[in-house]
């Protein structure tokens, strides 16, 4: 089969949109998820806990971060893989003094973190809680999957184990790590349909699928919004059931 045949075969897939029987009422409800960035974050107040997807800002919804910077809400607890870099991702929130507590696995590529952790101005002091990356990902997953935690060998015998229960299973020691949830999750999609079904291109996926399941209100900033049925169900990574608000116009990431 040459590539041309494959393309034709794909085009001959069953017409998915015809398989959906959507009433006008349902359509109205679904379309109401479409919001501007400003509308989508309207409920985010000072002191909120927010999960932000992405890895070194690849897979972070910049359009939503920009709206948060504009709104200037303060004392946020941010759960993100890293601190981004100055001018990108959660680095923008950090530079704007909006983060009180950062829960992340790596902050070394954003020099602002050290600066803000070591400031003498008590009110501006950043609390940084470092969590091994695999543990962070799994804690978020557990938070969205109804689990009370999980046992991981990562961190045994290190300062990560301080204050945690060590449980031995079949002769090996594990740390009990607890689930993480948040008030809001800001995730980034490549293509999202009007229901919220979302795909992620390349390495933009990162923490986004887990975070979409682990917050009370989930906003997707996405590059392309399409009609329901346009994404092959085989390719949907995050179901629309997890998504509360859809914001289009996210631009592709540039280093």
């Amino acid at each position, binding site marked *: 089969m040459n590539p041309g045949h494959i393309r034709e075969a794909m085009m001959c897939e069953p017409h998915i949109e015809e398989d959906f029987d959507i009433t006008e009422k349902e359509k109205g409800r679904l379309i109401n998820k479409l919001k501007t960035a400003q509308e989508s974050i309207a409920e985010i107040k000072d002191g909120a806990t927010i999960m932000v997807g992405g890895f070194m800002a690849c897979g972070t919804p910049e359009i939503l971060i920009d709206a948060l910077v504009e709104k200037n809400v303060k004392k946020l607890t941010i759960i993100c893989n890293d601190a981004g870099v100055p001018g990108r991702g959660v680095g923008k929130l950090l530079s704007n003094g909006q983060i009180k507590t950062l829960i992340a696995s790596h*902050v070394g*590529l954003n020099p602002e973190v050290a600066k803000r952790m070591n400031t003498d101005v008590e009110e501006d002091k950043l609390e940084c809680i470092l969590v091994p990356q*695999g543990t962070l990902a799994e804690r978020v997953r557990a938070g969205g999957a109804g689990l009370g935690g999980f046992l991981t060998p990562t961190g045994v015998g290190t300062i990560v184990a301080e204050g945690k229960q060590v449980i031995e299973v079949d002769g090996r020691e594990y740390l009990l790590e607890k689930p993480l949830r948040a008030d809001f999750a800001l995730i980034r999609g490549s293509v999202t349909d009007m229901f919220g079904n979302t795909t992620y291109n*390349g390495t933009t996926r*990162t923490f986004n699928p887990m975070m979409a399941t682990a917050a009370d209100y989930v906003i997707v900033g996405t590059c392309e919004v399409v009609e329901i049925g346009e994404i092959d169900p085989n390719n949907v990574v995050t179901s629309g059931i997890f998504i509360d608000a859809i914001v289009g116009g996210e631009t592709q990431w540039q280093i």
Partner: protein
Amino acid sequence: MADIKQIIAARVAKELKDGDVVNLGIGLPTMVANFLPEGVDIVLQSENGIMGMGPAPASGDEDVDIVNAGAQYVTVNPGAMFFDSATSFGIIRGGHVDATILGALEVDQHGNLANWIVPGKMVPGMGGAMDLVVGAKKVIVSMQHTQKGAHKILKECKLPYTAVGVVDMIITEMGVMEVKPEGITLTELHPDFTLDEIKAATGCELIISPDLKPME
């Protein structure tokens, strides 16, 4: 002496077998992929969500959605897959990565590793390192033998651990060392150095293998 980093990377590459699933740390370890022997194809895992990572793209050919764990543009090889971070670390902790190659601030004779924090000075965070060294089948530390003369291979790590008892092998510009229950054993010595020099540059007892070979 040729570039130290290239010497180390070239020697590390010889530890990899055809078909190995490998995670390379940022910096020197990344260079290992450039020195793979003829006939050895490995599958590179990148913790930000790639199995089957390829080399850097030519300028102008970048896909802005595809980066490595150092946030540099990369390509993917035919047969590659993308996944989320929970899946990525399931692969890592689950023992599906054959080897991880990473740098260190300190390693000690018990195979303890410190590479994520210098309290009061530098707090970059552990990133994926704690999971990688606990989960990978073989942990190879590749680094310069000393930090400007200061010992990095020690009796006991002074810095907070990344993990305990995980390091299998240390490869530096001076030699190749295996971490064994009886201690750190020198198996290869680089011809540019003498036994006395490498012993002096090491902060713990160095057991000399009876089969000591020159490092190539």
